[in-house]
């Protein structure tokens, strides 16, 4: 049926606009996600879901801060801001105005591996998002006044999220210390000195290289007519020229043989601990087991270190852990926010003991079951809204994975056993391969 639909849409169209049905797969018990590709390389993933009269239209680009060059850090994020400027057809300010006039939520996000622009709209307003996104993908106007004005905004964002924020600064120092020559080592917001120097020419070159159809995935979830929407996309994007899919220079793995430490002295109410262990890429089977282990260690109020450091010994206000879903191997980040008077080294020793306990004796069955149940709840909750579903489709497809890959992850999470946790604890939570940043109040 989907092949037939592609044929119908292709009647009378040129080569660039030719639509090919790539495949479909179940997205839960009720829905199906379908993948498509146009002749110019543009990929589309559709998930019709009439459960609410809304739709999420997302444009995912396979470019993020890891694709930046030295001296040009922050460019991917900076450029994301510039995309809200004007085009020849849509003057500056009109993009937001036109979307807000129909009640749309519109914004964007940039991270290490990707940039995502989204519009969540009342279902019948979807054509407007298609028109505006297709336009700014090729017709953006880049000039000095726009770049200068947006530079100020980006610098303000950086001051807010990093320079004046204790955890923002500690996190930035952690990644830079752990991965000094790796593209994940610099902040996605960029170093301030680089943000100050980004030029119109830098932005133009970036736009020409990365904002091309072959580097784009459109993810659409919600209440829409698939045939009608694919025709509109063909009309809006089909004329865009095909160009080779850009690639990042090869990256050397983040090797580390001994522990690195850094102390930051700054105004703060108490000590903080940020720890980064070498971590697998999102596509690595160990990623899932390590996520379960993280739940056991620091996930929620029943976790081992929350009970020990926050509840029993009252050394910390909170503990947390995060394994980022990055395309390349990166860092598993753990943090302890200590109470006034609490000693970060005591917290670090508690973490070491907890990890040694897992390596030596494993995780009790009831604790393992709790960790998995919490993750299951989180994964299912992420699919409550149309934008949540489109997020998943776009993210998985951009990383080259099956768009409905979330369901494989749910099954794989359920299958994780004690031996998996011991294995990943031994392999990845090696103190020789970690970096420790301690914040000491000044």
């Amino acid at each position, binding site marked *: 049926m989907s092949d037939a639909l592609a044929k119908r849409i292709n009647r009378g169209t040129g080569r660039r606009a030719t639509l090919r049905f790539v495949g479909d797969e179940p997205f*839960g018990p*009720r829905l199906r996600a379908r993948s498509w590709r146009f002749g110019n390389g543009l990929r589309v993933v559709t998930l019709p879901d009439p*459960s*609410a*009269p*809304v739709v999420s239209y997302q444009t995912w680009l396979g470019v993020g801060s890891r694709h930046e060059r030295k001296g040009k850090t922050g460019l991917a994020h900076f450029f994301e801001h510039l995309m809200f400027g004007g085009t020849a057809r849509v003057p500056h*300010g009109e993009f*937001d*105005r036109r979307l*807000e*006039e*129909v*009640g*749309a*939520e519109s914004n964007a996000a940039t991270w290490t591996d990707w940039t995502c622009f989204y519009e*969540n*709209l*009342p279902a019948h*307003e979807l054509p407007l998002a298609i028109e505006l996104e297709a336009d700014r993908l090729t017709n953006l106007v880049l000039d000095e006044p726009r770049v*200068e*004005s*947006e*530079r*100020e*905004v980006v*610098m*303000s*964002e950086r*001051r*807010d999220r990093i*320079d*004046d924020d*204790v955890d923002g600064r500690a996190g930035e120092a952690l990644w830079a210390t752990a991965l000094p020559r790796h593209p994940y080592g610099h902040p996605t917001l960029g170093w301030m000195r680089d943000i100050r120097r980004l030029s119109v020419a830098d932005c133009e070159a970036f736009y020409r290289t990365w904002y091309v159809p072959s580097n784009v995935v459109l993810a659409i979830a919600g209440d829409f007519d698939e045939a009608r929407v694919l025709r509109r996309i063909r009309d809006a994007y089909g004329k865009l020229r095909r160009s080779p899919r850009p690639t990042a220079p090869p990256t050397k793995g983040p090797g580390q043989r001994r522990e690195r430490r850094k102390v930051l002295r700054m*105004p703060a*109410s*108490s000590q903080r601990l940020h720890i980064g262990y070498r971590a697998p890429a999102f596509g690595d089977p160990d990623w899932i087991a390590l996520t379960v282990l993280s739940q056991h260690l620091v996930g*929620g*109020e*029943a976790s081992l270190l929350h*009970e020990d450091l926050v*509840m029993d010994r*009252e050394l910390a*206000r909170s503990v947390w852990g995060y394994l980022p879903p990055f395309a390349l191997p990166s860092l598993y980040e753990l943090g302890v*926010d200590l*109470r*006034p008077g609490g000693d970060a080294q005591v917290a670090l020793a508690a973490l070491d003991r907890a990890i040694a306990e897992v390596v030596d004796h494993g995780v009790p069955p*009831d604790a393992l*079951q*709790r*960790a998995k*149940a*919490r993750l*299951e*709840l989180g994964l*299912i*909750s992420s*699919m*409550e*809204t*149309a934008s949540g579903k489109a997020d998943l489709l776009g993210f998985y497809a951009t990383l080259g994975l099956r768009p409905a890959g979330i369901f494989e992850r749910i099954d794989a999470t359920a299958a994780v056993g004690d031996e998996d946790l011991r294995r990943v604890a031994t392999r990845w939570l090696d103190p020789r391969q970690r970096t420790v940043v301690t914040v000491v109040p000044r």
Partner: protein
Amino acid sequence: MTRRFRAQGLRVFLEENHELPLVDLVIRIEGGSLSDPERLAGLTRVMGRLYRRGTRRMNGAAVDAQVAALGGRLAVTIGREALTLHGSVLARNVEPFVALVAELLRAPAFRGRDLARAKRRIKANLAALADDDHGLASRHLRGLVFGEHPYGRPLGGTHDSIGRITRADLIAHHERSWRAAHIRLGAAGAIDEASLRTLLARHFADVPRGRYVAPRAGAPKRTRGRRLLIVHKPDRTQTQLGVGTLGIKATDSLYFPFYVADTAFGGMFSARLMQAIRAERGWSYSAYSVVGAARQRELWRMWTHPSVERARDCLALQLELLEEWVEGGLRAEEVRRAKRYLIGSRCFDEDTAYRRLDLAMSVAALGQGKAHLGGYRKAIAEVDRAAASEAVRRRLRPWDLGIVAVGDATRLADALGSLPGIVQTRVVPFDARL
């Protein structure tokens, strides 16, 4: 459509939806921090924390373990007018989850050692506020605008008031609060009415029925002049700037025109404030205004965070924009755009079962009536330029403001204190004991 019925003396809301195997459970107990005795500010917050710390039958660690084992989440939030417990759980475990939540509320242990621990944790969190510039500014702004009125009281109390709370206070507060007459219970997701009624009959049958009228605040009074408070924090690269004054009651007849006007001023990216501060000048990443909804006039505020060098210019411009807005009104085009935005985006308040439930329960709790549910789009559509401008002119006083700046006072005090209408400038250290 949210179903409503009474069961076990409770007002029950149900938004059934079987799209995902999830159930949300919301229990809203009227009272909130307004019911804290004056000397014991933070009592409701401590009580909320101790609801999670166990019952006569199980301790806090056992509760945490059971919530997690069921694939659940449980959060207690304290508002000025209610304590709300919100749980989410995998649908297959809804029965034991409801049983657990009911037990936590029906038979809290309030153990002395848990109370002592909760008090220490809350005090540690108060100390951490010194690291959060926006949080610091928000807390001080509320105090500056409301003064001694209960809306000015910090939800979580102070070091001193938390220190005074005893187990006897908690037991008495719980006995006053846990009354069917002022509890709203909501469920959303994969649960039908018959199942919910069965669960309520099984686990909520013994909620005391006696009447207790939760305290309500009187009308807050306006303080005259523009009062500036600088929270001195050296080494800041930027200044958190909060500007606030009394806003509007949730049941005010001018609510919809005011809401439209505020949206046009600072509630959208294309709004006047955002355009002037961020889009045209790039001075602050955030620039917005927002009005709270409560039974009395809540805080209206606008927020930016310019660099230290731009703080004066930015605040001066914000004040000018505020005066222009209140005294000069809005352009027809701005009102038209705000209305279209509010009407169009309403679908995002209603696109999941939980959001529909939350909306229905909030509207009921605020006593706002049907115009805020099914009649919302019509009510917004009926607002015109004159009504929107008039609502702002009648409710906002641009010369009676609280202004809080978190940053380096040595660079800010003179620069900000000399702006028009400032009648008082005070400086407090960022790490003062709260």
